Every structure is written in structure tokens, then in C-alpha cells.
């Protein structure tokens, strides 16, 4: 064996090790065998009407859906993102799939044990004996919410936490007022599609001056291989209130692509604060890029009130395609928008993610911290817009976008857009790209630290600014979901 060959082998060994670490087998790939009610494939006006009638919706909502469907037909699928994928056949998707259950479930005891078992396996036990004690959970399985924990306890504080279907029935005034008020159906192609066919999702209402007594969480599970998931989340924080919310997602391994097109709207009134954290671990497809979730999500928060604050933090590790830009519209004077993101791509995953911070009110502030890690043959782009409107006197933004490359076949891009119409404002942008260097690895190894642990330490160190922003309870889960052995390596 010549020297060069030996060196090559060594490098390959190292790269394989990195691969092994970042591509730990997908633990959530199982399918639950459950009888479900599905409607026929494809989308047309009748399907939209059928979904609405299945949910016994009021007329205003049916009209909302029909208008959205009309808009969707007029809109073009966006192609500006740095993503390449086969054309989606929208007529080959099932738009409604629900596990068969009794019509009215009064308590968790009546939920199909198979469903409870599924969430148990995902680490989200729902039954009273086992449920997480400090977090209320809304569990969504395919198109429907199957259970929400701690509802009564939250109601004592006036907090409403339920599925959006229930909210449509019981809190129609709030739905009519706020649904689509942040992301109108005409906003973009995927938001229009969601508005037409959304099946379920979570609803949160925090009344005036209430600090939500526990963290709220939604867990989205795609089970069926041929149906899309189109959930819709709406969070309203009244004056002086605050809430921390976490969203988790997993899906089984199928060799077909499943479409996930969600819409999340947040509304913060005067002095209200919403912290929205996501740990996204949809199935990413296999090493050859077969299968995986197409994740086209529109998330936006509106800081209507003075001194209100909306903070997005996300850990994106899954999906074959990620197209997602959680944004803030800063209207209220001195309102604050934040975006903290870690996006990890491996194999043939593609992510085009970032944020938009739209400064409208005076003295509004925004912070963007984005960390992209690309391994394998993946491609990972940050795309962000900071816009300072003409009225946003004294507005400030700070953006930091860092990329880390693992191996030499991955790609990282940064596309920052800055538009300012207000001379009296400050926009700061910093960006960096690094590669885990052989020298850094050797340094740690030469102190007795195993190769795998050395990589984990560095990745974890790279993400630390963002991990610090995650709610304490979920920071550990984020580590787990990053599929990296990060435990214990960072204090």
C-alpha cells in the first residue's frame, strides 16, 4: 500500500466515523397499525367542502377554505429557494386521514390504546399516571388531535389549550378574529394550500396578565404514508401575558415523500411574550435520498402590542426538504423579534431556512442567530430578510449566521437580504463558515478524547448559543434529536 493510499484510508475512516455519528439510525421510523378513515386522493373544491363538513365547521370557515383554494389555484409553486426536488403531484396526496375512534371521546381512557402506545414509544406519554408533569401536551396523529393533557388545570388560569378543531367549535369568536390575520391565505402557495385543507393543529389563548403556569407543547406525528399533514397552529397572547411553547415532529420511514405544509400564526399584544421552540425530526429519507418528508412551512408572529416579544428557536434535523422561515412582524413600539436556529443536514438532505424580521414600529429590535451544519452530500442554506420600514425610527437588528461543514462534499450558503427605508436605524450582520479541522480533532484526541466525542464536543460548542435559548426541559431532547452523542460534553 502506498503512502497516499494509507493517508486516504485514514481520511476515509475519519469521514465514515463522522457519518456514523451524524447519521445514527432514525429511531422514530415505526408505523402504527391502526384502522384509519381516509378520503380519496386528490384535491378539488368538493374535497375542501368534504373536509369542512367532516369537521362540522361554521360557514365562515368553509368560505375561508374555499377562498384559499381559489387563491392556491392561481398561485405558482415557489422556485426561488436553493432546493431541487421532483415535482409534487398534488392529486396523488390524501388530504384527510384520521385514526378511527369513537365519535366523542370524554377522557383519555377512551383513546385507542394503540395511539397511546405510539406516543409512549415517542417519549410523550399521555396518560395521567405517566404524562410529563411540567408540560401540557397536544398530541396530533396524522390529521387529528387525539389528546390534550392538563386542559382543566390550565383552564383554572383562563388559559385555553386545545386542538384547533375544538377551538373552532368552542371559541369561534377568537378563530374568526385571528385565523389568517398574520398569514393570509394568499400569502404564498403552501400557506394557501394549508388554508384550504388544514385538518387540525393546536390553539392557545393566554388571557390578560397571565403567565402560563406550564410550558405548552404540540407533538405532531405523521403515520400514514400517502397522506399529507396540514396542521395549523394559532397562539394568542393578550396584554401582559406570556407563554413558552414547544413543537416536536416525527414520522415513519417510507420510501415515498410525504408533504407537510403547516401554518403557524402567533399574535402578541402589549407587553406579551411568546417563546416558540421547535425540534423538527421528520424522517429525512435514506442515504440515497429516497423517501423523507417535504417540509414546507409558513410560520410568522405579529408583535402588535407595544413592548411585545416573539422569540423563535428551532432545531431542524429532519426532512428531505426543509423550506421554512419563521418570521416576526414588529409593529408595536419597542417590540422585539428573535430567531435562534440550528439546522443539521446530512446525506442528501436539503434545507433552505431562515427568517424575516419586518421592522414597522419605532425602536423595534431583532436578533438573528443561525447555525447551519452540513454533512454528507447535503445542502444547507440560510435565507433571511431584515426590513426596516420608514416609520421604524431607532430600529436595530443584529444577525449572526455561522456555517459548519463536515467532510468536503457538503454545501453551505448564506443569503442575507437587508432593506432599510429608515436612516436612523442600525443593522449589523456577521457571517462565518468553518470546517471541523483535522488539527482541532487531533488536538482533542491527543488529550485522550475519543474521535466521536471530539466531533460531538465541537458541534455542540458550535450550537451552544442556540441551545442556550431552548427551554431547559427540551434542551436535552434537542441533543437527542440532533442524533449526535452530545450528552455531558458541554457544561
Amino acid at each position, binding site marked *: 500500500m502506498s503512502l497516499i493510499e494509507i493517508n486516504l484510508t485514514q481520511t476515509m475512516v475519519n469521514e465514515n466515523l463522522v457519518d456514523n455519528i451524524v447519521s445514527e439510525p432514525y429511531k422514530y421510523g415505526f408505523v402504527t397499525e391502526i384502522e384509519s378513515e381516509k378520503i380519496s386522493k386528490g384535491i378539488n373544491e368538493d374535497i375542501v367542502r368534504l373536509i369542512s363538513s367532516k369537521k362540522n365547521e361554521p360557514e365562515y370557515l368553509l368560505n375561508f377554505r374555499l377562498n384559499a383554494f381559489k387563491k392556491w389555484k392561481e398561485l405558482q409553486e415557489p422556485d426561488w429557494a436553493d432546493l431541487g426536488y421532483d415535482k409534487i403531484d398534488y392529486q396523488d396526496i390524501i388530504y384527510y386521514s384520521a385514526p378511527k375512534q369513537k365519535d366523542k371521546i370524554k377522557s383519555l381512557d377512551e383513546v385507542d390504546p394503540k395511539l397511546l402506545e405510539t406516543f409512549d414509544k415517542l417519549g410523550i406519554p399521555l396518560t395521567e399516571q405517566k404524562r410529563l408533569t411540567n408540560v401540557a401536551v397536544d398530541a396530533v396523529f396524522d390529521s387529528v388531535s387525539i389528546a390534550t393533557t392538563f386542559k382543566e388545570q390550565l383552564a383554572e388560569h383562563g388559559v385555553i389549550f386545545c386542538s384547533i378543531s375544538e377551538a373552532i367549535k368552542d371559541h369561534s369568536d377568537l378563530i374568526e378574529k385571528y385565523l389568517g390575520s398574520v398569514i393570509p391565505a394568499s400569502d404564498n402557495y403552501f400557506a394557501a394550500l394549508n388554508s384550504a385543507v388544514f385538518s387540525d393543529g393546536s390553539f392557545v389563548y393566554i388571557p390578560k396578565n397571565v403567565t402560563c403556569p406550564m410550558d405548552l407543547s404540540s407533538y405532531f406525528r405523521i403515520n400514514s404514508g400517502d397522506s399529507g399533514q396540514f396542521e395549523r397552529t394559532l397562539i394568542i397572547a393578550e396584554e401582559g401575558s406570556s407563554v413558552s411553547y414547544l413543537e416536536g415532529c416525527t414520522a415513519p420511514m417510507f420510501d415515498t415523500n410525504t408533504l407537510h405544509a403547516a401554518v403557524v400564526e402567533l399574535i402578541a399584544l402589549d407587553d406579551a411574550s411568546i417563546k416558540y421552540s421547535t425540534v423538527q425530526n421528520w424522517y429525512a429519507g435514506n442515504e440515497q435520498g429516497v423517501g423523507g418528508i417535504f417540509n414546507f412551512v409558513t410560520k410568522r408572529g405579529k408583535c402588535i402590542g407595544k413592548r411585545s416579544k416573539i422569540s423563535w428557536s428551532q432545531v431542524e434535523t429532519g426532512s428531505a426538504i426543509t423550506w421554512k422561515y419563521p418570521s416576526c412582524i414588529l409593529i408595536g413600539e419597542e417590540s422585539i423579534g428573535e430567531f435562534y436556529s440550528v439546522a443539521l443536514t446530512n446525506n442528501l438532505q436539503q434545507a433552505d431556512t431562515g427568517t424575516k424580521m419586518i421592522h414597522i414600529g419605532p425602536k423595534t429590535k431583532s436578533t438573528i442567530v443561525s447555525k447551519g451544519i452540513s454533512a454528507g452530500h447535503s445542502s444547507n442554506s440560510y435565507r433571511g430578510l431584515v426590513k426596516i420600514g420608514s416609520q421604524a425610527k431607532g430600529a436595530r437588528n443584529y444577525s449572526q449566521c455561522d456555517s459548519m461543514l463536515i467532510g468536503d462534499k457538503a454545501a453551505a450558503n448564506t443569503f442575507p437580504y437587508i432593506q432599510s427605508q429608515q436612516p436612523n436605524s442600525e443593522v449589523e450582520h456577521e457571517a462565518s463558515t468553518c470546517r471541523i479541522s483535522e488539527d482541532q480533532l487531533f488536538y482533542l484526541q*491527543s*488529550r485522550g478524547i475519543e474521535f466521536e466525542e471530539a466531533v460531538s464536543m*465541537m458541534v455542540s460548542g458550535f450550537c451552544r448559543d442556540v441551545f442556550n435559548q431552548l427551554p431547559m426541559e427540551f434542551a436535552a431532547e434537542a441533543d437527542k434529536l440532533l442524533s449526535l452523542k452530545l450528552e455531558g460534553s458541554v457544561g
Partner: protein
Amino acid sequence: MESKKEIKQPLLKISDLFASTDDLTILKGVNIKINSGEIHAIMGRNGCGKSTLSKIIAGHPSYKITSGKIELCVNDIEPLEPEERAQSGIFLGFQYPIEIPGVSNLEFLRVATNARRKFQKKDELDTFEFEDLVKEKLDIVKMDSAFLSRSINQGFSGGEKKRNEILQMALLEPKIAILDETDSGLDIDALRIVASGIKKIANENSGIILITHYQRLLDEIKPDYVHVMADGKIIKTGDSNLALELEKNGYDWTDEFINKN
């Protein structure tokens, strides 16, 4: 005394070592033997192979041993990964310690110390026990505990980086420490702190190799042996007087020596 020394097993034995990188042969037959309790100095011009030798002993993946052997306590270390070499007691003090952003120095030191302790079949230390230990060792290099909470070597001055290296040496208690130009870039005060730290750590059960260009480190730490390296070989070995000679006469004679042979 003489006979006793002969039966003593060397800690580190390098025999007829040839090594290369990218098809370029850098080491051309190095022989060196270090017994416990000894301090050796390796001196020579830039590019003579001193730093390469130290990296090869530590297992840097860019270099390849083509023939010859390195033994630590009679065990051939060639099959060992760098981390296994470190765990079994080899320590390399870097000429240019690497900065690693985001990774806390304290956590790094704890993980490294425990990796070594595990190999030594000692109990691993928890956070509190380790903090006690590290505080004690900080004194050796007169380091402020504030350095522990920073990222590894990030934003450290040249002197601080070198002190951090010696702190690692103090924690890892290596059998054999190779200190690659630990004196470079240090002012005289920093040099004294580093040198006194090394002397405090040195003991009769371990060996030290000092790689240096200059006499000034050897004024602080008197070596038992001085080796002069040129063109990938050790061309002369002597006691500490050899270093003084080099200081006086320079390295030009080594070129002549190479040309002649």
C-alpha cells in the same frame, strides 16, 4: 549503579525510525531512549524534523511511519490511535495550541483527565471533585480560574496558551511529555512560570523531552541529555554542555556534518 541502570527498561524507545508525509521522507533513522526520571532536550534548525518527531509520537494522522519502531514501556505504539496513546501516558505540548470555539476549557480538561484516569483504572472525577483538583493544579502555572470558563485557547495570549498546555500536562500526569517549543513566543516572566511548572510536574517516574531552539529554557530546566537533530536524524548527543556549545557556535556545523555524510 552502572549495572542497575542497564537493566532498567526505558520509558520510551525510538529505534531506527523513518517517517514521511505526502511521499516526503522527514525522519531518516531516529534513535533515542528515555528512562524514567530523565529530561532530554532535542535541538536543531527549523525543518530538521523535531516537530515532526513529536507529532509522530503523538499519532498525528498526516504522518506515516515507514520503518522503525516507537515503544512506550516496551509496547509498540504504532497501532494505537492518538487518543489511546494519550490515555496510555503520552503527552504532546503543542507549539501552537489549537483554538476550539464554543467548547469550554473546564469541560475539555475534565473529559481529558477522566479519559486518562479511566485507563489508569482510577475513579473518574465528577464535576466537583474535578474542580478541586484543577484549582490545585492552576497554582502550578499561576493561572487564573477565569480561564477555565472560556473556550479552549480562544482569545488566549501566547503565554496563556502555553500555560494552559502545562496545566493539561499537570492534570494528565503523563509517563512521557514531549514539549514542542513551549518556550517560543514567551517573555522572560512567562518563560519562568512555564519552566517552574514543568519542574514541579517532573518526577522520577516520568520522562520529559524538551524541543527547543534556545538555551534560555535549558537555563531554567537543566536537561540530562541534549540531542542535536539535522536532516531527520540525531547527529550528536551530549550532556547539558552541548546546548551551551550550540548557543555559542550556532548550527552551521550541522549543515557541514550533513553534507559530509
